[in-house]
Every structure is written in C-alpha cells, then in structure tokens.
C-alpha cells in the first residue's frame, strides 16, 4: 500500500465514521435545530448592527460610509471616556472579587439550616432585592443615610452628639465601597438559586457514605458539596468574567450624583449620557463592542485555564 492510498483510506474511514456518528446521533442534531433557528433569526441576522461602530449610521439615512476605527479613536481620546473606562475596570474587578464568592458561601450556609421552614424563609428573603428596582433601593439608602433625618446618622448622633456626620451616598471616599457592597447584597440571592439547585442535585448517598466514614460537617462541605459544585462554579465564573465589563448600569445610574460621579461613572452610563443628547449610535456601538471584545478575550483565557486544570469543565 502506498503512502497516499493510506491517507485516502484514513480519510475515507474518518468520513465514514463521521457519517456513522451522524446517523447514530441524528436526533441530537435535530434537537439543536430549534435553538439554532432562534439564535440565527434573533441574534445573528441582526448582528450586522455591530458594523455601526465602523461606519456612519443614522436612523434616518441608514448605513453610511465606512470610517474605519475613527469612532474608536475619537471615543478613546476623550478624558471623560477614559475616566469611565478606568472606573469601569476598577468597579468590575471589585464586584467580581467580592460578589462572586458570596453567593457560594451564602448557599452553603443556607444548606446548613436544619429547620426546613426557616430554610425556605431565608431562601425567599435573599432573592427579594432582585424584584425591586435600583431606584427604590437607592431611594431607601438615601433616606437611611440622610444627614438630617436618616436613621443611621440619628443613631450616631445619639452615641456621640459631637460626631461629624458624612452622608456616605454623596461622599467621594465611600461611594465605591457602597456601590460594591450594595451590589453584593442585591445580587447574592439570584446566585444562590443556581447553587442551591445544584446542591439539591447532589446524590444524598454521598453524604451518607461520608458520614459512615466519620467525616464531619466541615469535611462534608469541602469534599462533597463544594466538590460537586465545582463544574457549576467554573461555568458561572466564566460567564461572570465574560460579562465583567458590565459594571451595572441601573445601579450606577440610580446612585450617581454630581459629587460622586467622578468616582463611579462607567462606560454604560457614559454612553447613555452621550446617546441621550443626540442619537449617537456609532459611539454607543463602539463602546459596547470594546466591552464585548474584552469579555471574549477574558472568557477564552479563563476557559483555557479551566480546561487545563480539569478537561471536563469549561463551557466549550
């Protein structure tokens, strides 16, 4: 047999195997069709919109000339955009560092509650902040920290009448901490939903076996619960990293005021402001695209690392 026929045979065999596989799994492929049709119709066809970042566009005139990277150049040259960009990264990282582990810890804690009624109550309680808007939440915060009538300055004043009271919602030094803390508080509930669902999916037999082996609560938590959660944690982490540049428009928009905006203005709020003045589709698209590209790069990196550590994990 010559070298070339060998290759051809190999290829033929490979092709035959693929065909065979496809025949065996045709139903799986068929199942993908509705989802694919959906993303093509409602995501991929409209995706030409990202080209607005590279060409002129107005709702009236439609698409205009290609302008290359000039929209990006102009946007990135602006001081206000640079400020928003660096704030964005800082706030995003802080939110990731503090916000990501919190729901895991919270879920583990909720899972420990013995009374099932109390467990349900706490579980319902923690998701509640997701159902009211940031405007209501910040409204409550403003009322709580109001220097004149707020509950917290009231308590401080009672303890120490001489204390100088600062409103932390309008103080440059404390605003970022407040943004991160309130985000962690608000977002924890929805995170616990997924983790608790995953925890209930863990085979009870594992715990029983561990108890027979004499493992304590701590060991069970570490070796069974957390170990079983690992794939979920990794996938959620990758998603979180992909969306890391979304630093929370609604929250920042609601919490902004002229005294603190220099510390918390982010890309989304900045783009919203320039967009509201005049319909600036190109700038908005360019900023969004920059965020997406950063997100994509981070996701691919994280996914690569995850695969290295554990070939079974990751999203791809």
């Amino acid at each position, binding site marked *: 047999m010559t070298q070339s026929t060998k290759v051809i045979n190999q290829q033929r065999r490979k092709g035959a195997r693929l065909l065979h596989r496809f025949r065996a799994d045709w139903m799986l492929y068929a199942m993908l069709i509705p989802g694919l049709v959906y993303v093509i119709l409602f995501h991929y066809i409209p995706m030409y919109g990202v080209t607005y970042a590279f060409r002129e566009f107005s709702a009236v005139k439609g698409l205009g000339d290609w302008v290359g990277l000039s929209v990006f150049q102009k946007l990135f040259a602006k001081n206000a955009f640079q400020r928003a960009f660096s704030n964005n990264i800082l706030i995003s990282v802080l939110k990731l560092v503090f916000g990501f582990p919190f729901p895991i810890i919270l879920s583990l804690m909720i899972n420990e509650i013995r009374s099932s009624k109390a467990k349900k109550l706490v579980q319902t309680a923690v998701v509640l902040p997701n159902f009211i808007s940031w405007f209501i939440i910040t409204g409550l915060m403003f009322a709580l920290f109001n220097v004149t009538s707020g509950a917290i300055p009231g308590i401080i004043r009672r303890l120490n009448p001489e204390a100088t009271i600062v409103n932390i919602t309008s103080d440059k030094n404390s605003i970022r901490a407040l943004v991160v803390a309130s985000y962690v508080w608000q977002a924890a509930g929805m995170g616990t939903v997924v983790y608790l669902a995953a925890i209930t999916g863990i085979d009870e037999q594992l715990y029983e076996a561990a108890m027979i082996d004499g493992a304590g609560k701590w060991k069970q938590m570490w070796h069974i619960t957390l170990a079983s959660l690992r794939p979920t944690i990794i996938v959620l982490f990758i998603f979180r990293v992909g969306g890391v540049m979304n630093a929370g428009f609604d929250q920042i928009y609601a919490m902004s005021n002229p005294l603190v905006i220099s510390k918390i203005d982010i890309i989304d709020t900045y783009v919203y402001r320039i967009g*509201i003045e005049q319909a600036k589709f190109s700038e908005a698209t360019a900023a969004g695209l920059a965020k997406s590209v950063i997100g994509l790069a981070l996701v691919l990196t994280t996914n690569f690392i995850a695969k290295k550590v554990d070939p079974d994990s990751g999203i791809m």
Partner: protein
Amino acid sequence: MKKFVSLLLTLTLLLGLCGAIATAEAVPTITILMAGDNTPAEDDSVLRALGEKFGCKVEIQVIPEADYAGKLNSLIASNTLPDLFQIRNSVTLKEMAEAGRLYNMAPALDEYAPDIKAYYGDSIYKSIVNDPDTGIYALFSEAGLYVNNLGIRKDWLAKLGKEIPTNLDELYDVLNAFTYDDPDGNGQNDTYGIALSTASSELWENLMAAFDIPIKTFDNPLCQLEDGTVTTIMKHPRFLEAIEYLRKLYQARLFDPDFTTLTLMQCFEKLWNSQVGMLGFRFVGTTNNWYPGRYTFEVPADPSELFGTVYLDGKGSIAKYARYDLANAFAINAASANPELALAIGNYMWYTEEGQNLTYLGVEGVHYEWVDKEAGVYQRLGEFKDDVVHRADGAFAYASAGGYTKANAETRMMNKTTQDAQAAEWEKVIDWPFIIEPLEADVEYGADLSMIFKEAFAELIVTTGDVQEVYNEYLQRWLDEGGEQYEAEATAAYAAQ
C-alpha cells in the same frame, strides 16, 4: 397540562387575529404618536369625538417620555412612521427634512390649518427646517412658557416679625431665622430656609439671577459676557461671588446639606410638609396645582395669603424662549395617505380653543360642564371627577403635544394668584443667550461639558479645599474638553441671529 397549554396557544393566536381584523376598515385612519405620561383606553370618548368631527378613525399612541426616542428611531429606521408624530431632537429633525421624509405643510396651511398659520405668523420660519423658499416641515412646541417664581411663606415671616427680603443680605437673615428660630412653632429644629437640589436648575434660578447669572439648565448653561462672547456661566464675572454666597448658606446649614441626593419631588415635599420656607419654582405648582390638597398643614383659602414672591435687587428669574423650542416639534409623515387630514386634526387639537377644550377637559356634557365659560370655570361630572377615570377616557392625555398656545386650556384656567404672579415675574426676568441653530460642538462635546459643569457647581459649594483652585481646575477642564470650540461656535451663532 397539555390541554392547558394548547388552550393557551389558541387563545393567544385568537388574540392576534382579532387585532388583525380590527385594522381592516374602510374609513381612513389617522395615526398619531406622541410622548406623554397617560395611557388612555384605545377607543375613548375623545378619540371618538375627534373621529366623528373629521369623518375618520383617530388612533393616538402615547409613549413614556423616557422611551420616546428609542421608539421613534425604530419607526424611522423601519419606515413605519405614523401620520403625525413628535420629533424631540434637532439633529433627527434636520435629517428627516433633508431626506424628504417630512410632508411640506406650506401649501395646505391656508385651507387646513388656519389657526396654526395665524398663531405662528412669520415666526414659523425660525425653525431650522422651515424656510419661505423650501417649505414648512415642522411646528415647534411652546411647552414651558411658565417662568419661575421665588415663593416665600408669608405666615412664617409674620410670625418672626420679618419682611419679604429685597436683597441678598436680607435674604440671608430671613433664611437664618427660618432655619433656627422655629418658624412653625413646633418646638423642634426641623426646618430649613430654602429647598435646593442639583436635581433641577429651576430651584436655583432666582438666587443666581440676583448675581445676573442666568442658569437656564445644569446642562452646560451659557451667558453672554460684556465683550459679546457666549460661554459657560463659570466665566461670568460674578460666578465666584455667587458661589461664595451659596457656600455661606451651605456652611450655615440654611438648606439641606444633602442637596445632591434630594430629588425634585422631595424638595416639593419639604414645602408641602412645612419643612422649608422658600421654594424657587413655577407658581403653577406652588399656588395652583398643589393648592390646597398637597399641603399637609392648614392653609388659608386664598393662596396669596400664604405665599409671597421674592425679588432680589429687583431681579426675577430668567426669561423663557419656549416659542422656539425647536428640539421639540411635530411633523407629518411624507408617506402619509392623508397628510391634509392629519394637519387639520393637529390644528384642531392644539391650536383652537374648541379643540383644546376637548383634549384638555373632555367631551362637554359627558366629562365636564361650564360654570362660567368666560372666566374659565368648569366642573367635572360624575365618575369623571376622578383624574384616573377622566384620563382613561381620553381627556387631558392628548392636550399638550403641540405646545401651549393662547388657546391653551391650562393657562386660561389657572387661579388669579398664579396668573398675577406669572405676569409680574415676566416683567423682571433677566435675559440669557438663546441659540436657535443646533451647534456642532454641542453634538460632539455637549454631554461632557454638561457633566463638568454639574460636578463643578456641586463641588464648589461643598469643597473644603481652596475654592479658587478648584474653580480653576474645572474651568480648565471645561475649556480643554471642547469648551473652547463650543464658545467660538456659540458666540458666532448668537451674533448671527
């Protein structure tokens, strides 16, 4: 479960079908899109009355203000515009006119819209898209003809033995007494002199006008310097003097130190709750709309007994040029099947007294009846005494799109105190440079410059650092980030007017 789901699906399909059938009709339909806050029922009495009068079906869709631009852009891009619609952005307006997407009203004006023609006269050509040679494509809005009044509680003054202040020193004295001398006599230190918040420039108008500074908005407010330059009010010779005065009030706690987080509504609430003695706002609110229902304390029947107006060094607030509010216009779709009919309906709804009565008060005999038509006194009938029911049946909701004209029902029906105070204020307002043409620098840098001004204004009032230094820093930023170009363009455009 399966049965339930299929039932649901059929139901929803039927729902869709019903919608489809309803649109297939013989009489012409005029569709109108406007921004507003009320959602009347689809087939309400006012729309039916309009339809009967014009022999057509009138459909009006009211979109919340905040979402209007997004909706309009989608309709423009997909070429599915209604017959008559509002455009609230001068760049889009210009582009639409240039692209030939707007109907030229000029030839039809005499026949179908005599009231519009009579009302605007030649000033109609002030709009950037209207020209005697090329045609009339947009009618601009007049919303906001009201000027600001600086209101003061007369009963508090009387109680403390003070007079209405006439200059800034007296004002300080009165504000101090309002804050610390228990003007409401409840024994608690729970009052402030004046309600201020960075949520609205209107609250600061009269105070700043006392220094000859016109603060029309917090979005990059402009003034004209002696040499004719039109620039940011930060460059006004008395700007720092005004800031020093505000700092003095702030440090003495004569207004709520949380002025950057208070909402406009919370400022009103302070007035309603008797927690402040002064508020700079249109008396349309203070002595008319809020009176007496909103106030949580006993108020006299006549609002002029409770509230007086303050003029500092004889100056009032600032003038309004709403007649040329060109960023808020309404136009007719060039592709409309019945543009003349749409024009006639617009003319009737917003520019005739009869149409204003219909859109504002509703159908006579159903929603309201006149007590004294000459004096503008009416009463609402039966279940329509309730605002919600009244608006759901189409009254009030469509009244204000075209702007306030002399036919406007609202201005005719205000109480005497308010009408007098508005008239008096107009005599004392200070001027500010109103630029008609949209500036290129505004499109390019407007949002950034606005933010710089807002930050500077708040920071200068509270800063514990060196005021001059902070001021220099912000002014430099303003100049560096497009302000110089803005200044040049604004000066040239204003001089050309």
